[in-house]
């Protein structure tokens, strides 16, 4: 890392930060790459890439079993990442951090382990109308299996959850709430602290899908008082294939293992197997060691930049983009919640998002065009698809200016 960010900085020096990301230095179709698809995945700083290379070059061994120095080193780095993440999200214990493949697997783990052992026939599971498919389908599946029912919190035309309707969904049969912290398709930041308080009044636990919130704001799981919080490394400047399930100890202790095999056992005989203690009970098999260590490097990077700085910078970009895009005739922003992460979803009159995506790509601009794995959100707004620009810590106002110029070019093609 450069000296500029080797010490905690108060104001984000974007130019210096951007230089930490080798991928962003390239040109695309002869133009400088402008990467505006951070909700899909973020680019990786050199320190994350280096940590993975270093691990495979110097420290690679299986963890939690070798008696030799190399294995101890690998184990220590893997467990250091767990502690770094615990501290990063203010969890009470390191064993409340369970490493999985990503937010999707974390939700599936909770649905299959907690859901299958707790949900009852005619029980009710509350989710919202703005969920990503990954926070719909796992619940749908387990509901079908257990005879439970999904209840959907409606949202307004601005893309906000109506707390009154939410409160009314609760009944003596309510067993669980799973809701996104921030919407990938609309950018809405939900009033999750209040939603958790309401659920807890009824004795109902809450899972937050933090995939789109974790990379963009400070997250304090103890302050939120959520029962489960899930997120992916790759959207937060870490490698793909790693994610985290945070859960309160009391739930993890009650939950049966999700997958079984090596590392998750205490003892095995053909008659009886006893399970390992937390967190290993939920980490069967050799995990993505390099990925976890790389995620640890990403957390160190985020700590140095400061999540407050990142949030402030992305809010500036969000407001700048919203104002600039509004000046384009025929452009309509989908999702105008008061609290949003740096996501702007929009449509252009008479021009399909897919065509917009292709033409912007020709200008070196990467955006997402489609339903964003949130088909119910698209149905809610009666749209087949939207274009989405989503910002990361390395984006600048100049990137947004380029997007606006690109969109005017799009309009020329279809004029």
């Amino acid at each position, binding site marked *: 890392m450069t000296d500029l960010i080797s010490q905690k900085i108060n104001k984000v020096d974007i130019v210096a930060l951007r230089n930490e990301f080798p991928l962003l230095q390239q040109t695309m179709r002869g133009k400088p790459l402008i990467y505006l698809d951070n909700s899909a995945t973020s680019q990786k700083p050199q320190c994350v890439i280096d940590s993975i290379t270093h691990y495979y070059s110097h420290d690679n061994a299986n963890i939690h079993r070798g008696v030799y120095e190399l294995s101890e080193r690998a184990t220590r780095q893997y467990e250091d990442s767990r502690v770094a993440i615990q501290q990063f999200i203010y969890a009470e214990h390191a064993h409340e951090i369970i490493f999985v493949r990503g937010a999707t697997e974390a939700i599936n783990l909770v649905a299959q382990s907690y859901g299958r052992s707790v949900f009852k026939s005619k029980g009710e599971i509350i989710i919202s109308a703005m969920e990503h498919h990954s926070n719909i389908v796992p619940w749908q599946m387990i509901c079908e299996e257990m005879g439970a029912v999904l209840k959907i919190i409606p949202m307004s035309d601005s893309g906000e959850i109506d707390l009154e309707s939410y409160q009314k969904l609760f009944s003596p049969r309510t067993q669980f709430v799973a809701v996104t912290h921030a919407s990938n398709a609309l950018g809405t930041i939900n009033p999750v602290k209040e939603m958790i308080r309401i659920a807890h009044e009824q004795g109902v636990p809450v899972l937050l899908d933090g995939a789109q919130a974790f990379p963009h704001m400070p997250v304090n799981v103890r302050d939120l008082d959520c029962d489960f919080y899930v997120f992916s490394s790759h959207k937060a400047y870490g490698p793909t294939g790693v994610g985290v399930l945070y859960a309160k100890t009391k739930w993890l202790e009650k939950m049966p293992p999700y997958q079984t095999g090596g590392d998750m056992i205490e003892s095995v005989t053909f008659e009886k197997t006893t399970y390992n203690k937390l967190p290993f009970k939920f980490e069967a098999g050799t995990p993505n060691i390099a990925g976890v260590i790389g995620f640890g490097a990403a957390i160190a990077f985020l700590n140095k930049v400061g999540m407050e700085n990142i949030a402030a910078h992305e809010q500036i970009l969000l407001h700048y983009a919203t104002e600039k895009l509004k000046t384009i005739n025929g452009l309509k922003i989908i999702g105008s919640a008061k609290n949003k992460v740096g996501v702007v979803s929009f449509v252009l009159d*008479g*021009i*399909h*998002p*897919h*065509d917009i995506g*292709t*033409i912007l790509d*020709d200008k070196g601009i990467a955006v997402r*065009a*489609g*339903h964003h794995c949130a*088909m119910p959100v*698209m149905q809610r707004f009666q749209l*087949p*698809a939207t274009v989405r620009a989503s910002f990361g810590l390395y984006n600048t106002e100049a990137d947004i200016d380029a997007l606006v110029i690109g969109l005017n070019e799009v309009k020329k*093609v*279809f004029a």
Partner: protein
Amino acid sequence: MSALRELYQEMIVDHSKRPRNFGVLSDANHTKEGFNPLCGDRLTVYLQEHNHVIDKVKFEGCGCAISVASASLMTEVLQGKTQAEADAVFNDFIQLVTKGHDASLEERLGKLAVFAGVVEFPVRVKCATLPWHTFKAALQDDPQSVSTE
């Protein structure tokens, strides 16, 4: 011409904005819906076929410029074709957008050759071929749903 201009030629933009043979064919004897889950494109192809001759083709649905223009031009080209002729055009068209064009292919395809630019955009091939796969499934009364994923 840039690859982008090659893709969004005037004829394609024109057909995407003013699709021909758009709407329900009430006396269709073959109907099929096609779906591209990646971008949400969805269209229905209606055919009226007698003795292996396609008398009428219409379509409706929503999609990107490439898929709507492809459907529109397809309906124009297939009108009056025998089933065997339609199969040949289908094969030529798929070859054009997946492998690129040669002179003889371009001659056989006539105005459909306007889609030659698609080959430079691999992610857009599905947009161009969705109407054609849907047409083929309609003609064969394929009970499977048509999806380009």
